[in-house]
């Protein structure tokens, strides 16, 4: 049975990727699952210099979902290259680096540092983090700035460039189209939905940052609709995510045209989720008498 897929020319042994920010650099999960089995690992957002992130509390649970306002805390791209990349290299899986910046130049600098290592398989441009004022979403919420950033980074790297879109927009297909035209090699979506929650006893926000990003099964129907719309609109490869918790969920995203899927919040519910999805996809293929995951991809029958 062939589960392999290609994303922007990059071959993954299967279409199951870990979503940025929910899997650390893989180290934490490596004691519980075999990282060699994953299609790819997307690491936590990397900036040029260390970022502190937002104050605590940074996360809370909601109905079938969670809000986070981590705010891209990370030790900077150099620390990652020195201390995490050698670890990741020891596994037989693709590594996708999620990059963030407060200016176009910072994005470019991070991309250059990572490209130099020759040990990264693709870059994911995070223009969709709803948790920080500068950087992230300020680039991603309108088509023009998203396109400008995409082409600026694309010029400076030879790595496949995946652009990660925010769902906090009115027309996701138009946004996708504009980054495609700007040179993106692939698109990933969705990042989290901006939300909030209040502790009614104290009248205070449950997150110190007041608002945070909603993820988990709650958002799956919206994410799936957006991935479908984007797959119809663009010719480049799409990585679908948002609330995927089992093989059926993953199959839905693949059926609407995503070439691969990423699993985020479900890693918290159960660290085995990615492994279970890989197994479950094989069972689904078998039940449909398919032998290649590429038969499943795009098989949605909208009537």
């Amino acid at each position: 049975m062939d589960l392999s897929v290609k994303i922007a020319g990059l071959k993954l042994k299967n279409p199951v990727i870990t979503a940025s920010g929910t899997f650390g650099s893989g180290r934490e999960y490596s004691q519980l699952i075999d990282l060699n089995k994953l299609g790819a690992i997307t690491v936590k957002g990397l900036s040029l210099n260390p970022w502190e992130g937002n104050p605590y509390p940074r996360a809370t649970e909601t109905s079938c979902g969670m809000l986070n306002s981590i705010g891209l805390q990370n030790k900077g791209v150099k620390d990652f290259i020195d201390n995490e990349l050698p670890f990741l290299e020891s596994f037989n899986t693709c590594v996708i680096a999620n990059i963030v910046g407060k200016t176009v130049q910072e994005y470019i600098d991070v991309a250059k540092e990572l490209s130099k290592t020759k040990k990264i398989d693709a870059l994911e441009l995070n223009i969709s983090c709803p948790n920080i004022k500068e950087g992230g979403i300020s680039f991603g919420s309108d088509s023009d700035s998203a396109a400008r950033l995409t082409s600026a980074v694309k010029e400076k790297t030879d790595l496949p460039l995946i652009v990660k879109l925010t769902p906090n927009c009115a027309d996701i297909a138009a946004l996708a189209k504009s980054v495609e035209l700007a040179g993106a090699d692939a698109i990933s979506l969705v990042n989290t939905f901006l939300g909030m929650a209040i502790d009614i006893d104290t009248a205070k926000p449950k997150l110190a940052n007041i608002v945070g990003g909603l993820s988990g099964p709650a958002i799956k129907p919206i994410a799936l609709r957006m991935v479908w719309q984007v797959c119809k609109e663009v010719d480049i490869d799409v990585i679908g995510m948002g609330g995927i918790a089992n093989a059926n969920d993953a199959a839905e995203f693949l059926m609407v045209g995503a070439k691969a899927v990423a699993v985020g919040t479900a890693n918290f519910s159960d660290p085995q989720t990615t492994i279970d999805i890989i197994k479950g996809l094989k069972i689904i293929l078998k039940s449909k008498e398919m032998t290649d995951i590429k038969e499943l991809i795009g098989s949605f029958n909208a009537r």
Partner: protein
Amino acid sequence: MYQQDCKIVEKEQIKSDVFVLTLESKEIASKADPGQFVEISCGQNTDFILRRPFSIHHVKDSTIKILFRTIGRATMSLSSYSKGDILNIIGPLGQGFEISKEAIIIAGGMGIAPLYYLAEQMLAKGIKPRVLIGAKNKKELLGQEAISELGVEPKIATDDGSIGFKGLVTDLLKQEIYTQIPNPSSLIPTLYACGPEPMLYEVAKIANDNSLDNQLSFERFMACGLGACLSCVCETKKGLIRVCKEGPVIGGEELLEV
């Protein structure tokens, strides 16, 4: 660190809202240090999706115990499981307590959960800790009997004085430090505390004022429990730490603003 389906081999209800579950896991039991915790998946098809952290309360042979209070959706769900049912558990997690030769243990409320196991381990090593337990009132008091059965008579503080010292357990701690005859062994005690955050800060302050080592077990909201998500951070003199990974036991001297 292991992730396993563990059978509930015993379930006890020790108060209307407090339960003890005994779970079978040779692997977790063999590695668990006092102060470490486990992450439990508390229900299937529920509207909550995150695991919940619970301190390791006791280890015996191939079993561990957890002690918990039903306060919300997950703990309610957990309390509906029965002997023979299976729970998926990850553990042991985090950094536990370091055992020292002379100890004062201060438990506030559910804080007894990890501290009971600590006391037990100390006694197993021939160290006899002094134990102070605080509670709102007699009815809510947890752990008095269990600690007595270990052979240490705990001192009790309740807010309303319905049993023991009337006042905060940290006031009792001050008494213990200032007015009690110094322990004949004349070793300087380390303070071990778990309980509500204001209590922990007060313990750190008392420790600081008296130049005592102190190890405090903190609670933070945890999404992953594994060190991956950065939701459980706590600011310390060393910078931001992950309570699930570098904690939950933190040296009081590392806290800011004590």
